[in-house]
């Protein structure tokens, strides 16, 4: 008789879809406090657009042939995708894992650790869609988006959300304590926030830094979102899209693997 292969080594099978119960749990918590949750993505773009777009922008003539406020509006939406997904799989997931022991409770049901991880990642991706869609609606009210191409922001938000959800969960699998996330944010999120073609064109940077910036996930996300928002093309979209799809799979895959190593003993 041959030894049966162990469940723990078997590749993850998404067809059974058991992760949606966990996804539903996270969604229910979110909806319970929706009034609080929906305020930041509405207020934040208004503040940024007023301060940077119209305030600072008044001192800047034009960027790449467009008013400064038009240049930064898509970047603000993209930053929201990054932050909402990354925050979800760092602080929020860590609280569920470590303080609330929610995952311990769920893993005692037919769901496995992989199901829970996939649910956390998908939920972070959807959260990116929710936040950036609300934000894009506000930006559209300022007349800064070009339709119908701007509707592409919704699927892009999911893709970008999955990239940063994966990165966030990778961080959660490795940090020794929740305080460590502040380093991750300062060293990883803040540089991308500033140097990904968000508030000034990359061409302003010295060549080596410009090329390095092209390797950042947020840079590629901004390229896609800006083209969709303005209905223009730079010729970099295909590269950015492929980059993000590959990054999403690689980061999410690594995150699940690292988390299994942290949690299954």
């Amino acid at each position, binding site marked *: 008789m041959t030894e*049966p292969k162990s469940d723990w080594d078997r590749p993850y099978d998404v067809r059974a879809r058991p992760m949606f119960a966990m996804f539903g749990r996270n969604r229910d918590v979110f909806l319970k406090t929706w009034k609080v949750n929906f305020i930041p993505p509405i207020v934040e773009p208004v503040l940024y657009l007023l301060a940077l777009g119209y305030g600072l922008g008044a001192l800047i003539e034009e960027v790449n042939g467009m008013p400064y406020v038009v240049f930064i509006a898509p970047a603000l939406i993209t930053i929201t995708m990054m932050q909402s997904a990354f925050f979800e799989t760092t602080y929020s997931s860590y609280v569920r894992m470590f303080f609330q022991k929610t995952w311990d409770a769920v893993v005692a049901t037919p769901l496995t650790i992989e199901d829970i991880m996939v649910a956390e990642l998908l939920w972070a991706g959807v959260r990116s869609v929710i936040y950036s869609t609300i934000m894009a609606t506000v930006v559209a009210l300022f007349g800064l988006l070009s339709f119908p191409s701007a509707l592409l922001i919704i699927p892009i938000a999911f893709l970008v959300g999955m990239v940063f959800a994966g990165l966030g969960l990778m961080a959660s699998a490795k940090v020794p304590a929740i305080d460590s996330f502040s380093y991750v944010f300062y060293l990883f999120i803040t540089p991308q926030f500033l140097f990904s073609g968000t508030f000034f064109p990359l061409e302003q940077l010295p060549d080596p830094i410009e090329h390095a910036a092209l390797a950042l996930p947020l840079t590629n996300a901004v390229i896609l979102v800006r083209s969709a928002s303005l209905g223009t093309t730079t010729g970099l979209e295909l590269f950015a899209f492929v980059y993000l799809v590959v990054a999403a799979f690689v980061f999410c895959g690594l995150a699940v693997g690292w988390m299994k190593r942290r949690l299954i003993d």
Partner: protein
Amino acid sequence: MAPDATARADTSNRPTDARDAVVVARGLTKRYGDFVAVDGIDLTIQRGTCFGLLGPNGAGKTTAIKTIQCVSPLTEGTLHVLGMDTRTERRHIKRLLGLVPQEDNLDPDFTVFKNLTTYARFFRIPRRTAHERADRLLHFVQLQEKRDAHIQQLSGGMKRRLVVARSLVNDPQLLILDEPTTGLDPQARHTIWDKIRALKREGKTVLLTTHYMDEAEMLCDRLVIIDKGRILEEGAPRELIRKHVGGQAMELVAGAERPETLDALAADLDARGVTYERLSDRLLAFGPNLNEIENELRTKHGLTETIERRATLEDVFLRLTGRALRD
């Protein structure tokens, strides 16, 4: 309960019938690097019984439970739960398990009722069934008035009862209770015991870990005492008490400032072939006929006090695992 317990103990001495056994472990081993947490234990838990897993902190109880619960793979040996292999059928096994964990892990974002229905969704229980069951279980654990309360508003005992209700939401065949009454007041403990007995009457199989030996003695049909990952002893509680401490215990108190009296008393008991343990100010003697020598010992050694009591599972536990602190 006594005749019942004996009858069950007898049936479990039969050769293992795979259909009756809910948990069958053979050579169950779990290593973390060089550290051996569970060292080749054999376990058989019969259907409809309450089985105790006892041991000091770090003995390997929680590790053993995690393997039975299918959240931690074993390093060696075989482990079947409800007739299924834990290595290959963990989803099916987990569908039929209920767990009351050591630490409360209720969802603080949900109400009492929503905690149960959310948990039911993990088992794919249809919504209507889940709602009916949640209400019935809240009634069972006497929390129906708290149905719409938030978790933060519950006392420790109420949270515990809710966790018990949650563990029953999938109508499990095996219920794993990991220190279910730790930190509870006497009223809450007695309520939990009452519920466990009710579940046993319904025919549920229960696996219990606890540090309270009175609890184990009262609830368990059979139990194992494990230490350093190995089984030290297995049997029915009364059987173990009879075997190791003879049914009666007597505390012979001399006072802490008189070690020489304790020395003499110890020598005396050695000569009489009485088993005993030495504490700081007294000897704890075990045996069937201690009251016959009680007065003689008292006058001969000038003892300040003698306390006769029933020997308990705690005496057995301490004799087998020693009195040294574990952490």
